[in-house]
């Protein structure tokens, strides 16, 4: 088997298992209160980590590039209570515009 297909199969099976593990094993079970509180905070913690890495990480380095400007513009749109689509478009357009002129 080639390295490519080995990767496709192993990564595919691992991903399926990782995604299904919790939902299959925790089926119909209520989490304890303290666990529930911790799981609730997964959303803000993970979302913030995704914002940080997708805006400032490039491979294994921290960089400040057009994505940061796009995020800043998107953040301003969020503060102005703009709809989700507008936020995303403002961020993309800002980054694209800066790349076009640089």
């Amino acid at each position, binding site marked *: 088997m080639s390295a*490519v297909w080995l*990767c*496709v199969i*192993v*990564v*595919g099976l*691992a*991903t*399926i298992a*990782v*995604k*299904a593990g*919790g*939902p*299959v094993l*925790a*089926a119909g079970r209520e989490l304890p*209160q*303290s666990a529930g*509180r*911790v*799981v*609730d*905070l*997964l959303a*803000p*913690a*993970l*979302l*913030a*980590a995704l*914002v*940080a*890495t*997708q*805006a*400032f*990480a490039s491979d*294994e*380095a*921290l960089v400040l590039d057009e*994505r940061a400007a*796009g*995020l800043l*513009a*998107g*953040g301003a749109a*969020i503060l102005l209570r703009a709809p*989700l*689509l507008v*936020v*995303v*478009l*403002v*961020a*993309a357009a*800002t*980054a*694209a515009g800066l*790349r076009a002129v640089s």
Partner: protein
Amino acid sequence: MLPLMPAIVAFGASFGVLATAAGVDSLAALVMSATTFAGSAQFAVVSVLGAGGTAAAAIGAAVLLNARYAPMALAASGAFRGGPLRRLLEAQLLVDESWALSSRDGGFDRKLLLGAGGILYVGWNAGTAIGVLAGDSLTDPATLGLDAAFPALFLALLAPLIRARGEDRVGAGDGARGEDRVGAGDGARGEGSSPRSADRTALAAAVMGAGIALALTPITPAGVPVIAATAACLVGLTRPRRAAAPHRLAEEASS
């Protein structure tokens, strides 16, 4: 969700293009998008293999990147129905975007998770096919600023989790009352009645999560920073009494 379709298709296409350029055959790229359905891990495999890395290195990077789906899927497990096989299949529609979009005040909206996940699945696979067929003739998504769209999307989804309580606090006036509401929200978890369960604790979790991710980015392999950031949710344990309170309140109310 539909407005994000062009971005998803474009990223799927860029995966197809990069996979082809890295020497991954078309069928393998298509099968990978259909089975793995996780952009970051797929890009990692292709980039490691393209740079001459071993299968073990590529698999290790991809598994690390996808490890975040374990806690995310556990948190969303209430959104899935049926027996083990059906739950297994439904859970495959969980990706960052569908998870974040369906996150609702302590619970997850089943229709949104499956709907958004299904649309993303179609877009991602269609995009991969386009990329594999079109090769290098496509525009780089970065030129269109699409790589800046995703952090902004996640920030937009994060904002209401923190904002809800800020507004409440203005009306509530004193801290003690606000704290009671935190407990009340916990007790009714998943029933749509806990819009205020986020607030300062959520802000603390977000700030710590981002801080952990940024601090680890230069010193750990890709994927580790985001997984490690989940440790920030342990700030939820700093309020055990409040988390337990709703039970007592409910018992008192019923007696």
